[in-house]
């Protein structure tokens, strides 16, 4: 058998060192059924043995919105850009929850799934992808709640209007999803060996929520404008609100910055994840 033939025959070669960019998208595609089944599992398993079932999808954001409205708008008298506080917070919470859930769940990919990863191989990226997808579906469902509230306010003559920026909404969702996926898998890779980052995540996500959901960019005092500048979520939130509610801001420069940050974190995240996945079982 000639050497050349030999090389062509092998369908699987396992070696100690892998090239950094060896991300096997074809293999992930082959496991697409697993992705869809995992997404299904997330939905089905979540609300088994609950009386209200999927209604919980609506109750969670609804109660948070009511709470925020009461706390921050009524009692705290914080600015909501002149919008009805209910809508302002619900819009923020719906999209924020999407980002935060993806980030938190993806940042524990390796630790949460070590029992499965330790026993069987499939492309590990399948899991974060399925998490992001199931959260996207959840966002879709929760967006219906937002739309219902939206209609209610329109019928009551609230000064809200849809602007052309609403066309950017799918892009915003995509960016939120990719950003949380990138940062999430990066953190999950970094925490397989040293768990320190994990403590930072819970805490950091909470702080970020205040900086993203509660305060509109316009309400930052001059001194703290930089906070709004470095937070890549602000341009996305602002554009979303501008599109859906007619109050917010669109800063093309900041938006582009956000796109760049997303691409960089997605690449770094997937790269580091890819480097980690081969041997993480030994250190997790």
């Amino acid at each position, binding site marked *: 058998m000639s050497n050349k033939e030999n090389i062509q025959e092998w*369908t699987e070669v396992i070696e100690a060192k892998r090239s950094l960019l060896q991300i096997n998208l074809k293999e992930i595609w082959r496991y697409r059924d697993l992705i869809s089944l995992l997404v299904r599992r997330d939905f089905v398993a979540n609300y*088994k043995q609950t009386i209200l079932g999927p209604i919980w999808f609506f109750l969670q954001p609804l109660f948070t919105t009511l709470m925020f409205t009461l706390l921050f708008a009524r009692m705290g008298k914080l600015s909501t850009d002149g919008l009805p506080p209910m809508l302002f917070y619900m819009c923020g919470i719906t999209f924020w929850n999407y980002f935060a859930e993806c980030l938190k769940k993806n940042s524990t990919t390796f630790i949460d799934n070590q029992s*499965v990863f330790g*026993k069987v191989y499939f492309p590990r990226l399948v899991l974060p992808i399925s998490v992001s997808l199931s959260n996207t579906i959840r966002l879709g469902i929760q967006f219906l709640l937002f739309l219902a509230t939206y209609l209610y306010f329109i019928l009551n003559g609230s000064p809200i209007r849809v602007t052309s920026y609403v066309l950017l909404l799918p892009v915003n969702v995509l960016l939120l999803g990719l950003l949380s996926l990138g940062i999430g898998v990066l953190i999950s890779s970094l925490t397989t060996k040293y768990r320190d980052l994990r403590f930072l995540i819970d805490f950091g996500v909470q702080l970020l929520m205040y900086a993203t959901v509660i305060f509109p960019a316009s309400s930052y005092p001059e001194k703290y404008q930089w906070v709004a500048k470095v937070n890549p979520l602000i341009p996305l939130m602002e554009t979303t609100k501008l599109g859906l509610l007619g109050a917010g801001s669109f800063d093309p420069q900041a938006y582009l910055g956000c796109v760049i940050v997303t691409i960089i974190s997605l690449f770094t995240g997937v790269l580091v994840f890819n480097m980690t996945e081969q041997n993480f079982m030994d250190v997790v």
Partner: protein
Amino acid sequence: MNAIEVNNLSKMYRLGAVSTGTLSHDLNRWWHTVRGLEDPYKKVAEANARDAKGDSEYVWSLKDISFSVAQGEILGIVGRNGAGKSTLLKVLSKVTGPTSGSIKMKGRVASLLEVGTGFHPELTGRENLFLNGAILGMTKQEIRSKFDEIVAFSGVERYIDTPVKRYSSGMYVRLAFAVAAHLEPEILIVDEVLAVGDAEFQKKCLGKMKDVSDKEGRTVLFVSHNMTAVKSLCTKGLQLHHGNVKTMGEIDTVIDSYIAFAAFSSHNAVNAKNEGFLLREISIKDNGIKGNFDIDQELTFSIDVENEQDFESININLFFNAMEGGLIFATCSTAEQLKKGAHRFTCTIPANTLNDNVYSVDIMVVKQGSKQVHYIKEVLALQGNEPKREGAWLGKFPGLIRPTYFSWNKTSF
């Protein structure tokens, strides 16, 4: 034509907990890599001898392993605990990567290191069946086309729409096994998982494995401590010891080598003396080597003693213990009057009495019916071996002993 080729495969593990000390090692390692040097810890790593105290924190779980497996072969991988069998399977199934070396494989690989991986307790049997199948690498389409077959195989039709957390552990295992048994990869890697199943399942599953290899030319790698299964199922064998390949070749050769290598003994020069009674030695005659005996042949113990004075009444007791189950039975010689001098006691256990288990034997010497002169525990360690079994069922015959000379009769009315 080879389906698998393994070249100089090595895997290094670090012992102890991952702690702050790890960071300094990581930095050191990184610094070596930056300068283009080899991993400094590869040099200090030691062979993986579990029972020996080592100086290094790093051990080679596998060290420079090379072998190849031809297509359609069933390779049995044997070795003591910690020999590197599971590590080898893990590296082959891509659960963890090698430290150096390479593996080349041809065709779709499925590994079965555990059954029911990814089962979610809240989901129904049906939902889990799909999920588990997909985790093992099947597409929805494949699972759907085999669904009825899998459910029938598992025998839990009635519960298929009940969450698996309500299943008995047996049902759970059967469903999980059923999925696994219907995998159709070109290369199948199976760890000791089959040991968990009940006898009926083992029969089905081992039979199925043999079938796929014989009829469809699939390659199977099989790890087990059950020598009966290995012997009957595998064509080739690979014996690992401390991360190295000890022997590789025909399955019978490999099993013999494995058996000869194990820490069993058929001879013990006790030389214990008490009250003028010397227990010189105990040994097994004419059956097997190194404490490995064939269970279908009689097993004769001979016990040599020497006494410096006359004894009125001496009897010798042998206690048989199973590794997993305490004392199984004791046997006692008749009370003998012993004149000063050397004597030999023999005790014969009929063929087909013991099972293919690991036994330890204790010896006790008693004078005047009740006074203990010697009591030595684990004077011999024995392993029963079953000759190659014909027929469909290859699982372990249950029970600590296996007397096959009981009589059975049938009367029809």
